[in-house]
Structure formats: structure tokens, C-alpha cells
């Protein structure tokens, strides 16, 4: 089954423990390190991933970012989370 589960509003999100997410000074960027690869994450992506702490729900992540950026970021956050989920960077905490 290649399921396309959408990330739901009440899901608690965490970074897949196989991945290591951190700031890389020489690259001046946030990176996700995982077996066999490196992903450079842009600023927006990094702001979202920082909140994927295994405690917050999607709704809480969105509301925190709405406040931070002073605009409605719901759509773009949802879109990023879906891509990140499909790529296996994040997972839904059960």
C-alpha cells in the first residue's frame, strides 16, 4: 500500500528519529542528516521542523507560526508537513 495519509490537525508530530536535524555553520543552513543523505532545509521549513517536538499538535504548530509571522500560514504549513511526511522526515506520534 502506498498510502497518502494527510496529516490531520490533531496529530502530534515529531521528527523521524532516524533523522538528525540541526544548524550547520559551514553551510549557514539547517540540515536533516539521515542514512545515505543530507537535506538542506530552507528557513521556513526549519521554522516548522523546530516545532515538531513530539508534544505539539499540527494546530498548535500552526497557531504558533501564525503568531510569529503575523499572518495566516495554515496552508503552507500543511503543505510542508505533508511533503515532510511523505519523505519520511517527520512522523505522527501515536
Amino acid at each position, binding site marked *: *500500500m*502506498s*498510502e497518502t495519509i494527510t496529516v490531520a490537525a490533531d496529530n502530534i508530530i515529531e521528527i523521524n528519529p*532516524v533523522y*538528525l536535524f540541526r544548524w*550547520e555553520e*559551514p*553551510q549557514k*543552513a539547517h*540540515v536533516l*542528516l*539521515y*542514512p*545515505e*543523505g*543530507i*537535506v*538542506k532545509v530552507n528557513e521556513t521549513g526549519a521554522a516548522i521542523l523546530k516545532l515538531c517536538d513530539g508534544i505539539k499538535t499540527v494546530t498548535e504548530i500552526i497557531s504558533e507560526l501564525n503568531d510569529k509571522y503575523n499572518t495566516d500560514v495554515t496552508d503552507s504549513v500543511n503543505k510542508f508537513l505533508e511533503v515532510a511526511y511523505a*519523505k*519520511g522526515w517527520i512522523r505522527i506520534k501515536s
Partner: protein
Amino acid sequence: MPKDGSELSLDGLGIPMWLTLEMTYRCPLHCPWCSNPLDFDKFKNELSTEEWKKVLREGRAMGALQLGFTGGEPMLRDDIEELVAYSTELGYYANLITSGIGLTPERLKTMKDGGLKQIQLSLQSSDRDITNKLVGADVYDQKIEIAYEIKRQGFPMVLNVPICKQNIRQTRDILKLAEELGVEYIEFANIQYYNWALLNRAEFLPTREEIEDAEAAVKETRERLGKKMEIYFVIPDYFDERPKACMNGWGAIHLTIGPDGAALPCQEARVIKGLEFPSVLDHSLDWIWNKSPVFNAYRGEDWMKEPCRSCDEKEKDHGGCRCQALLLTGDAANTDPVCSKSPFHHLIESSVAESINEHRVERPLVFRRKGAITTDFLETTE
């Protein structure tokens, strides 16, 4: 090496993001596709623990991120645990690339505590006899046992399956075994024809039908397992019309250090005659990467000849593999003959044709052993 499907920021900013340490050329296995040099036994002076630490420090200072401990069999060194812990302190993402021989539950635990992130275990077949025959050693049971132990200790694991005619028909069984083991990644890496593998090429090349059947098995399993297990399937470049973007370009993101301290743009580069590989014992990593003639030899596009020079795909594949160009056409600056635009492409076609010629005289596999072939008359770059 980055795989199909792996994400990589290709604008490495000129940083050797991927550092591979060939800790030793010693190995308890005798795989006839080994990527180590034919004259591996001549490289006896391995770097010391402190010398490896210096390499790690200098690499990290330049921004290296991914780190691979490989060999030979890296577990033959008794300082891997110490170096893993040191690399974690420095901020690397440490991977161990191993046959599994020499790994024990205790050593795994020490490396887990030292921050080892991932283990790539080689697996040649799902069948005991075939495995033992293919690697020239009685190791199958040990490999399976340690594979379960690796999972018990919670490491993400890649099963690395070198694919050749002798095992390609077992793709389904190997996938089943991988599923039982619970690995996150399995890579079917079709053998690349350099060094020992090139000696045995005619015996190893699978047929196109065998490759298609294996691909079908991979597709079925992907559909069934979804995200549970990631399957990489790299088809042999001999069956491609365009060359692989080898190493993402020469001196672009990859830096390999041989057991003796020689700095190499890739693990096969020693086959290229006339290049003097600078040693980390004589130079800083920074000088080697940025200034040394070797690392600049095929960097970028200025070195390219036709048909690469005027090709609109040169930025995509960087002209393919320098080592393959050298081995098959005699000049490392030629277009990789895998490319159908190469004037030497017929060499690839004829070797594929020869491998399926039913009148071909089959030859025994040459196993990687000291003295298996004489290298006395080979010119080496030592």
C-alpha cells in the same frame, strides 16, 4: 555514495560534505567484485588512530557532515569504537559500512554509546551456500546473527546487496529476508566494473531480462510495504544510455581517504594512472581538497572533451565516471563510454553482447586474495 531517491543539496558550496574513510584494505572476505585495488596487499602502512583523528578534525572544520567508516573490513581495526565516539563529538553523522564480520554485541553497544548513527551491512544472498561461495568464506550465519543484533540495538540499517548474475534471480527472496530482519533500507547495488569486478565482468553481467525481473520484484515489494522499507535499485550503468553522475562530479562533495592516507576523489580513483594522490600525512585536507592538482584535474567542466564539451547534459552527469573512461577507453578525460554519444560506446555494447554469447568460454571467478593474480608488472601509483 548518494543513491537514487536520496536528497542531497548538490550545491555543496565546494565543501567535501561526504567523507569516506577506508580504514584498512584487510578483509576476512574474498569478494570477487571488491572495489579495493588489485594490489591491495601493498598498502600495509595504515594510518594510526591519532592520524585518523587529525583527518576527522580537518574534515569537520571544512564542513564535512556524512562520514563513512569502510575498508576492507573496518572492524578489523581495534580503534573504530574510539573513532566513532570522536567523530560524534566533532558533529559527524557516522555510518559504518561492514561485512558484519568482527562485529559483536559488545562492540555494537560501545559504538551505539559513541553515537554511531547507522550501519550498512553487506548481504550477498538469502541462501547460505551461495553467500559463502560468493564471498569465499563461511560467514552467512554470522552475518544473519549480527543483522538481528544490529536491529535489537536499535540502529537504522541498510542492507547492501551487490547484484550480479549469480544472485539477481534471488531478488524476491532477499527482499523477504530484509523484511524479516526489519531493515529500513535495502540497496540493490548492481556491481560496478572496476578492479576485481572488472576482472570478472563477463561472469557477473546479468541479462536485461534478469534486471527487468528483479525490478518487477522491487516494484511489487515497494507497493506492498510502502514506507516501511525503502528500496533502492541501481541498475548497472552498462544497460543505460546515459552515464551516471558519478560522485556528483569529481571533487564536488566526496572525499575518500585510503588506509595509507592517500586522498582520493572516489574509492576507485587509484586505477587512474599518472595521478599522484596527495597524502594526509604530507598535506592539510584543506590544501588537498582546494589546491591539489588531483582534486582539480576533473573538477568542473574545463577538462571535458567532445562529445561532453558541447553536450547539454554535461551539468547533469558531469561526463560520467572518470575511472570507467580510463579503464575502457584509456583516457580518463574521455566521455564515459556508457554514454551512447561516446565514440567508444561499442565497448560497452560488445561486453554486454559477449556476456550473453552462449559460445563464450566461462571462466572461474577470480577471488580477491593476495597473490590471486600477479600485480608485479602493474604500474601502481604508490
